């Protein structure tokens, strides 16, 4: 499975892990991974450690996740992008409005 979710130890944040290619083919699965989380204050972490490529439709999917997090009053953090993905995030200047960690 290219997408897996888990709950953080504190319980108020959801970690979404994407592996291999993060592109349009994951559209539905990606949406399903967070759509059912409706608890106010839930935050999301998108862990890209195992993802090796990302295209611009993935950028759009991230924006949708961010919107979902903000509707719940939480936020979104992107974690561990590799160099290729980091470059795509950088070109789109996502660090201006999303926290990107290591």
């Amino acid at each position, binding site marked *: 499975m290219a997408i897996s979710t888990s709950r953080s130890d504190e319980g108020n944040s959801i970690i979404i892990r994407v592996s291999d290619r993060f592109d349009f083919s994951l559209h539905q699965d990606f949406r399903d991974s967070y759509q059912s989380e409706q608890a106010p204050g839930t935050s999301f972490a998108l862990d890209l450690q195992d993802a090796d490529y990302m295209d*611009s439709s993935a950028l759009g999917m991230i924006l949708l996740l961010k*919107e979902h997090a903000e509707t719940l009053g939480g936020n979104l953090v992107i974690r561990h992008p590799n160099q290729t993905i980091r470059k795509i995030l950088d*070109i789109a*200047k*996502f660090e*201006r409005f999303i926290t990107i960690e290591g």
Partner: protein
Amino acid sequence: MELTGTRPEQVNDTVLVVDDLETNRLLLKGMLQHLGFEVLLADNGARGVALFRQHSPWIVLIDVLMPVMDGIETAKQIRAMCGDRFVPILFVTSSDDEQLMERCIEAGADDFFRRPISLGALKAKLLSMQRIRRLYSRVQQLHSLLQRDEEIAEQLLRGAIEGDNSALNRIRSLKRPAETFCGDVQLSAFRPNGNLNVLLGDFTGHGLASVVGALPLSETFRAMTQKGFSGDEILRQINLKLMKLLPTGKFLAATLVTLDAEAGQLYVWNCGMPEVLVISPRDGDIRHRISSADPPLGIMTDFEPTGVDVLPVASSDRILLYSDGLVEARNPVGEMFGDDRLIETVVKAAHSGELAAHLMQALDDFMDGCLQDDDVSLLEIPCNIRAKGGNQGRVVVNQDSPELVFDRDSWLWSLELRGASLQRVNPVPMMLSQLQEMQGNAAHWQSLFTILTELYVNALDHGVLQLKSEMKSTPQGFARYFSSREAKLNHLTEGFIRIQLTYTALEGGGRLLVRMHDSGKGFDFQRWLAEADRTEAGYGDGLAGRGIRLVVALCESIEYSHGGAAVEVGFSWRDDQPPE
């Protein structure tokens, strides 16, 4: 022949039966003829293939086990001949070996008959196959209809979006959509002062959904460019439009460049696109690489373009804009074309001055027939493009006897901007649209646009903001000048600029007096005017003082007062002035 009899359909009703046993063949033939079909019989696979080629039957019944060529091989060969046509292939077998059935389906079969065959079962199967075949041809029909409609829609849309592009004979443009509709948009238009604006945009995704924003994008770009708005104002406006229009998750990456060929300057705003390259064919290398400084448009409501790069360019230089579909194109083993290969190709082709063509060739070689999964587009802009009839020469006016038509036809328009409104409002397009509305469109507004822009920029930069023009004497200083200008402008709370336009009709033409007064301390205008005279006589070529030189060259009178803080410029024209 139509079993259901509901709707006559143009079908050939021939059935091909391939079986090595004569009893089986005759049994099937009898039943099929009873159901009203024409029947072709073959006693081995090879003959079956030959009969199929000759008669194109609508359905084939094959015995699995046969000598010479077995049923599976026969099915494969027949399937290979079908192309886009739907021809059901049914196997007839006495075995219930599941593995064998699997192999049959893999070879291209659609269904099975188990022996012994009853007339009812045969009729039912053929009926269902006919139904599938009707569905299939309906889908094919709809698909080709859709494709045709898409192609027409694409052409219309393309025409509306890119049909009005300027300098098409000079800009080399290549575009390869991944589908009929292309999410990449290429736009070009001249500003009133003859500068060229080019925008390369890439909407998220491709296909029909990606082009909904293209029409408002092109309208905004064109209207604002023609009115003389600056690049960051255009981008801000496009962003607002797209925020309203696009759903979350859809956005537009875009590069906008403004080429001032006369001054040898290039302004680049890169919002989420790959690097912009400026190549010098003369030196055979890459002169500038400008990477993305701002996020794409349509994501943030408060989008504020921070990164304009102002770069010196030579007239022989070439600007290269491309979408990420180029660097992310993949070859048959899944590798990406990539930045390194792109740069290598560009450096190799730099001397040729045919960058776009070389790049496309390199891309084709690399992809080796692989299908594109994103739109690829490429623009190559030579740095010597400027509008014909721009402000090259002054508008020639017969000044011997410009008879005043008294006050019967005149107007006065004025505006005062104070404090922070100076950072928000650009009055030049307002003045220009004022002129256009009251006096109609005319070629000489191009020169007037230049005069108004230069006067206003001088009043704001050197008057209100107190920036030193000397800073601009080197290209590095030029960049520093812009960042300090931006910083000062953002904190502006006081100061004013008063603008007054006075129009008077003349015999067969008109005259406009432009007065601008700023809150600054003034400047040593005598020195600059002398400088302007000197350079007009062929001396000096600094980046500073260009503004005054231009104004002096274009207007018929210029007069400073208040120690240089106020200026009045006269400009006359004849209505019969040819457009260029």
